Structures are given as structure tokens and as C-alpha cells.
């Protein structure tokens, strides 16, 4: 069951109706757990057992830590054992696919069956969630959850099981224990969020995915002097695609959870409006960055260490982030490059400050802010090249050519030959501009209250226009093999 599908909407509606029809927390928990496991089974039937295994390890781990009582050392040791077990499961399933490709020829030589390991959907998310839970229980920040169905729901809650956000145990577990009353306002804002997520996914991310795929699959077709700028256009398209894909998914997930009265963490805070790479990473995939900060960066010493150690910690965190995203060298390069941006940014800050002073530049002018935002976008987009390229060689081919001043490709119809027709291209550009315009407005005002303040005809017209645009201009349907959300594979 794809999240951005009518089947999912029907499933969500049925579960929401049943949820509020049930009287108590216990029955509602069982309903949501059943729905979550069924949802996960529909996504990844072969690997549902791995999810159950991680749930079991986390639950037993929490109980074992609690049994250690107030002995902090014992709690830590027990937590470490179970965290290692969870990491081992993650490492085995996430990276064994790569290693199986390496060992299968050898297995074949000795007449053994080849390994067929695939990635259980969302494993990186629910293992990180479990680790967070174990560490928080060990610290005493949250009590171990005794109620097994509730704990299992915490790990497998269907809106977030496939790609997060990685919830905070402190925030989510108490919400699962509460009885939520039906709220028309929450229902309304939840549905609006779901619709907005659909719009980002179907109007922007999926069609752009077609364009990006057509270029990135054979980047060597584009040469610097001839039409290299197409590589740049595709790279910008990917930057927009991955944002609309992942943030669209997050909107659907958060909107879905809100229907049940549950608030999940925000994952994005208009990252492409950031004025530095450091700020970008505070606004992008916030739940993962918070997790890495809390459970990797701070334990490594955080900022309270000598400068060189701080830089090493930053690089380590981003290297881990890269490896978390995938086993390929491209992900490692992407992580290291993002870390390097920040280290270099920090190290050269005094130099840049001096230069700005000498030149007498006012840092608060709109022009300067726009320059900073644009520069950040370029740097981030260059890093995305590694993330999206099919090999390190492809990425290194694309990078120097993507800035080639072959501007004629923008007007000679070259862009219409990248998998999208001209009207589709226009629609996707207009949709993307609308998305960013709305997000820009959201920096200035509370958007949902703003919408609710409008007159009924205006509001309804806006809602209907949104639904109409999704249904008619959306990129989906039988002729199109709906792309999964990019982040499901992590």
C-alpha cells in the first residue's frame, strides 16, 4: 500500500472511523496496532518478522533495564547490550544486501544457495526509534513501557513506520496512553496537511523524479560545452524533488496521526530558506538530526571539546548520517561533504567576517540574505549530486559540468525531451513555485489559522482548487508506476 494512494486514504478513513467508534484506550490501542501491523505487512510482507523482532528486543530491553533498579551502571550496561542487538539487526539487514552481492559468487562456487536479502522498509527508522527508547529508559527519562501492545504501537505506528519521523519516546508514548476525543478542528487541519502532502508528492516530486531519472541514468549524454546545464537543471530538480517527496510524505504522516489526536514531530522547517549549511541541517530531517545530536554528537563530546575534536565530531556525525542513508560510496561522500561544509564554514567564519567588514557589507539587507540563501542552496544541491548519482564516477562527472553556461538548453526544447511534456513541465514548475510561495508565507504568519480566518467561500474554493489540482494535474495512475517515497529505502 503506497502512502500517496487512494487505497491509503480509504484505509486511513476506515481506521479513523473505527478508532472513534471504540470506547476505551485499550481497544483503540489494539485497533491501531492491528492496523499498523497490517499496513506494514502490506508494505513489506517478507520482512514483517524483522519488525516484530525489533519490537520484542526493545520491549524486553526496556523491562531488563527497569529491573536493574536505580543502579545507573547496570542500567547503562543492560541498555548497551540491547542497543548493540538492535544495531546488529540494522547492520545485518541494511548492509548484508551489499555484502551478499559480494559473497554470492563464492557461495555459488561451493554449491550453496545465494543469499537473498532485501531491506525491510523503514528499518533505519524503527531501529533508531528503539535505540532512543532504550537510551531514554536507561537514563530514567522515560519509564519502561509495560503495556506490550502500546509499546508495539509506539514502534510500528502505521503513519510513521515506513519513513519516520523518528519520534521522541517522551513525546509519543504518553500520547498513545491518552484517550483522544474527536476534534473537528484537528480532523480538519489533519486532512489539510494530508492534502498538502499529496500535492507536494504528486504535483512536484513524482513528475520531477521522471526528469531527474532520465538525466541521472545516463549523465554522460550531456557534455559540458554542448548541453551541460541540463545536468544542473536536473540537479536542482532533484533538490526540489527530494524535498517535496520527503516533506510531502511527512505532511501526510503528521496529518494522518493528527486525525487520531496524535502530534508527531516536525521534520522540516522550510530548509531551502536557510542562510547557511549549518542552518539548513537544523531545518532538514529534523527528527534524524535531533537523534544524531542526542545519541551520537553529545556522547562524543559535542561542542564542549577542543576545536579539532568538535570538527571531528561533526564529520563523524555526518559520515554516520551518510552511511545510515545507504551503503554506497556516494552516500559516504554526501555525508562527508556536508560535514566538510560545516567545518569549513566554521573555520573560515572569522575570515569571512573580516571580509564583510572591509567591504562594508550590511548583512541584514534583503539582497545579502537572498545571496546567502542562494549560495546555501547551491552548496546543498552540489551535495545532493552525490546522493542521487548512481555511482561516484557519475557524480564526479556531473559536478564540474552542471554549471556549464549552455543557457540555450533552457529555450531550445531540450528540457521537453527529459520525460515530461512541455505542459507537464510548466505545471510542475508552477506547482513547485506555489509550494515554495506557501512555505515562504508560512515564515511570516501562522498558516492554518490564517486560512481559517478567511470567509467560507474563499476557504472552500482554496480546498477545492487543491483537490482539483492533485487529481487532475497529479502524476499518478495506471500508466505510471508510482514511485515509492524516496526515504522508504533508508
Amino acid at each position, binding site marked *: 500500500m503506497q502512502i500517496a494512494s*487512494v*487505497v491509503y486514504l480509504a484505509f486511513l478513513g476506515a481506521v479513523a472511523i473505527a478508532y*472513534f467508534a471504540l470506547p476505551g484506550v485499550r481497544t483503540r490501542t489494539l485497533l491501531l496496532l492491528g492496523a499498523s501491523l497490517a499496513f506494514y505487512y502490506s508494505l513489506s510482507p517478507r520482512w514483517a518478522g524483522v519488525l516484530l523482532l525489533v519490537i520484542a528486543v526493545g520491549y524486553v530491553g526496556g523491562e531488563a533495564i527497569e529491573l536493574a533498579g536505580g543502579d545507573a551502571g547496570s542500567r547503562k550496561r543492560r541498555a548497551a547490550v540491547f542497543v548493540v542487538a538492535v544495531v546488529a539487526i540494522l547492520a545485518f539487514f541494511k548492509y548484508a544486501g551489499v555484502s551478499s552481492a559480494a559473497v554470492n559468487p563464492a557461495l555459488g562456487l561451493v554449491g550453496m544457495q545465494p543469499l537473498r536479502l532485501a531491506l525491510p522498509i523503514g528499518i533505519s527508522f524503527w531501529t533508531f526509534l528503539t535505540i532512543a527508547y532504550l537510551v531514554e529508559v536507561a537514563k530514567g527519562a522515560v519509564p519502561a513501557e509495560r503495556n506490550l501492545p502500546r509499546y508495539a504501537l509506539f514502534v510500528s505506528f502505521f503513519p510513521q513506520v515506513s519513513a519516520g519521523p523518528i519520534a521522541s519516546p517522551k513525546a509519543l508514548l504518553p500520547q498513545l496512553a491518552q484517550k483522544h476525543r*474527536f476534534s*473537528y*478542528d*484537528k480532523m480538519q*487541519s489533519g486532512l489539510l*496537511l494530508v492534502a*498538502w502532502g499529496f500535492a507536494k508528492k504528486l504535483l512536484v516530486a513524482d513528475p520531477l523524479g521522471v526528469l531527474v531519472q532520465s538525466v541521472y541514468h545516463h549523465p554522460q549524454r550531456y557534455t559540458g560545452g554542448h548541453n551541460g546545464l541540463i545536468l544542473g537543471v536536473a540537479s536542482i530538480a532533484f533538490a526540489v524533488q527530494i524535498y517535496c517527496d520527503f516533506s510531502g510524505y511527512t*505532511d501526510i504522516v*503528521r496529518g494522518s496521526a*493528527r486525525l487520531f489526536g496524535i*502530534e508527531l514531530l*516536525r521534520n522540516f*522547517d522550510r530548509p531551502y530558506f536557510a542562510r547557511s549549511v*549549518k*542552518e539548513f*541541517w*537544523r531545518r532538514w530531517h529534523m527528527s534524524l*538530526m535531533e537523534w*544524531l*545530536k542526542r545519541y551520537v*554528537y*553529545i556522547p562524543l563530546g559535542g*561542542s564542549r571539546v577542543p576545536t579539532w575534536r*568538535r570538527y571531528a*565530531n*561533526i564529520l563523524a*556525525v555526518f559520515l554516520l548520517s551518510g552511511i545510515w542513508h545507504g551503503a554506497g560510496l556516494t552516500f559516504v561522500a554526501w555525508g562527508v561533504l556536508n560535514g566538510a561544509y*560545516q*567545518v569549513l564554514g*566554521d573555520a573560515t567564519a572569522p575570515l569571512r567576517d573580516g571580509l564583510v567588514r572591509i567591504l562594508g557589507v550590511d548583512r541584514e539587507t534583503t539582497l545579502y540574505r537572498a545571496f546567502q540563501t542562494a549560495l546555501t542552496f547551491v552548496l546543498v544541491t552540489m551535495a545532493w549530486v552525490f546522493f542521487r548519482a548512481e555511482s561516484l564516477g557519475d557524480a564526479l562527472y556531473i559536478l564540474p559540468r552542471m554549471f556549464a553556461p549552455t543557457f540555450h538548453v533552457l529555450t531550445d526544447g531540450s528540457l521537453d525531451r527529459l520525460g515530461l*511534456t512541455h505542459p*507537464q513541465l510548466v505545471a510542475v514548475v508552477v506547482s513547485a513555485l506555489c509550494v515554495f510561495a*506557501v*512555505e515562504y508565507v*508560512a*515564515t*511570516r*504568519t*501562522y*498558516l*492554518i*489559522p490564517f486560512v*481559517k480566518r478567511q470567509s*467560507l467561500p474563499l476557504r*472552500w474554493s482554496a*480546498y*477545492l482548487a487543491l*483537490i*482539483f489540482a492533485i*487529481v*487532475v*494535474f*497529479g502524476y499518478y*495512475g*495506471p*500508466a*505510471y508506476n508510482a514511485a515509492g517515497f524516496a526515504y522508504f529505502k533508508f
Partner: protein
Amino acid sequence: MPMTEPRRTLPPHTRPSLRSPAPRPRRVAHHQNDERGPLGLRFATLARSLLFGALVVAMLSFAGLVVKPSRRGDVVGNPWQSFGAMRKNSVDAMFFGTSHAFTGVDPTAVWRTKGIPGFVLGGPMQSPEVTRYYVQEAFRTQRPKVVALDVVGLGYPKDRFNRAFHQLNVGYMPMSMNRLRAAMFSTPPGERLGVTLDAWLYHNRWTELSADDFDVWHKNAGFEYLKGWVPRPECHHVPTKPSPSLTREPADTPDPDVAYHLPALRAIARVCREHGAQLLLLVTPTGPPGKYTYYAKAAAKVLAEEYPNVRILDLSAPGAVPRLSYRTDFADGGHLNADGAAKSSAVLARYLAATYRLADHRGEPAYRGWDDEVRQHDAYVSRLKREKR
């Protein structure tokens, strides 16, 4: 570096956001005494929600009508538009089934021969599982005395599925419970939404829409005088050696393909009986002769006990249609062309009149329009043949 605390101008829970729930303590006191319905909602809120839902449905239905490709009565796939133009309860014989029905049965030839008003409601590669809903839907507006079912679909293997044809067969039915049933029960799960919601299936056409597409009330109108028949002008030389199917006798247990379609066949027979119509299993001429005869015999044998009045008319047997030419009367290996359909339909008309004693309505005031439609039909067929030459 991302790991330091972010600088915030507002606490996180109050930051402006599209996503953050609104900080809104704006409950109006007088609402509290209002009458409330399910889930504690005020009835006004509930009514507003329902109205909004209705508006969404209306908007998407209209969008569906716009983006759905136009199909008039002279092309395969949309006999329902012409069928809807028929006067209520004016048809005595109806013909259902596959392409063999809509190419091989010419209702105008039936009318011209015996004055029997008829209509063909067929679809390309239409399985009996869909045809049953066609029959049910047809009975909502017509009361035919005879329902003739082309038997070719009874031989379709269970896994035979053509998405494009199925989308025509179900997707062009009028929106009704029968269409929803056909979408639900006769359609593979992954295709159900497409044949139910036109906007969903055809939305990709928005890039190629023309002004005609927006004329939703007339875009499919035209060629009603063909009465569901889709004439083919081509000529194709077909084999004349009879098929083994002609003489093959059905076993006591029907083979798996026929057995798979039996529930649908029984449903069709039941619907006919409920409406007082006679079911006729029709085999249109084929080359080689008798290619599908076996299916008619197998079906009749199964139905014999429960529905003893079900008859077979095998027009594919050698000599069943006088002067039928295997050189000039077929459009391809299986389908009759316009000339072949005229000859075959004349025999069919005589059979219907003789066997079921269907009245001759020629000259009746209520059927005066048919004479004009016959002229339009003839002009159309002549033009078609001329263009082919």
C-alpha cells in the same frame, strides 16, 4: 554545525508553520447549546462537511467527464450513449457479448427483415462477468423479450485480461450500482479505481484537451442510428474448413474455462428469467465455421436443467447463413464485415420472429423514427464502404 541549539525567535511550539496546529481558543459560547449529532458535532458543521463532500464529488465527476475521451456510436467501446437515446421500453431484442456481437449483429438489418426493434450492447473482449452487469443495467430502461448472448466470451481463459478493453467495457457504463458492481466484482483489484473514477484514470489527458472535451453533454453524441453496431468495411478471406469445435460434444463436466464463467452465465439467465425474457445463446458466423459452437453447447448443457428454455442459434455452422461468403463477408478471421453482418442478421431476425413470435413493429407510429434511422444507417454504410475502396 547542526548540533548546537538552534536560534529561535519563538518557542518551538509557537513557530509559524503550515503544519503546527492552530493556537485557537475561539469557541463561540452560543454554540455550546446547539443541537449536536454524531461525535458531538453540531448539525450545522455536519451539514457543512457533507455539502463540502458533495461539492468535491460533483467537481471530480465533472472533471472526469471533461478528461474522459470522447467515444461516439461509430467506434468500439461506448454503446451506452446510443442506448440511452433509445425510447424507454421500445426494444424487443437485445444482443450482448464481445466484438462478435457488435460487429456481427446489425439491428437495422434485423428491423428491415422482420420489424423487430433491437440493440447491441457489446464490448471488446468482454467477459461474461462484465456482460452480466450490462444485462442488469439494460433491464433498467428496456424490457426486451429476447436476450441473445454471443458465446465467444465463454471461452476466454480465466487469466485473459486486456486492460484497455476492460476500461472501455466498464468505464463507459453509465455511473450506476451495476457499474460499481462490475468494477468491484469483475475487475482485478489494481484496476478497480480506474474503471470507477474517470478523473483518476484519464487525468493525464489534461495536456491534450480541446474545446470539444468541455462539451460534456454532447461530446459522445452521434451515430445513435447504428444501435450499438460497429460496422467494419474490410474484406478478409477466412478458412472454410470447419473447426473441430463444431462437432465436439461437451463432457458432463465442463472444461475449466467454461466452468469459470458459469456463475456469470447463470446470473445472466436468472436476470432474464426475472424480467420475463428468453435467453438465446448466439454463435455468429466465423471462419473457420463452428469455431465457438462448442461453448454454446457446453453452456446450454449446464443450464439445461435449471433453464430449459435457453436455446442455441448457431449461425457459424456451414450453410446456416445462405449466400454467406468466406471470401467477401469477413473483416478478419473471426468477425463479420458490414455485408456479412447484414446477411447474418437477416437470418437472426427470421429466427427471432419464428421462434419467439416477436411482433413486427414496422408502420407503428411509435417506431416511425426507425425509418429515418434506417436511411441514415444505409448512407453511413455506403460511405464507409466507399471510403474503404
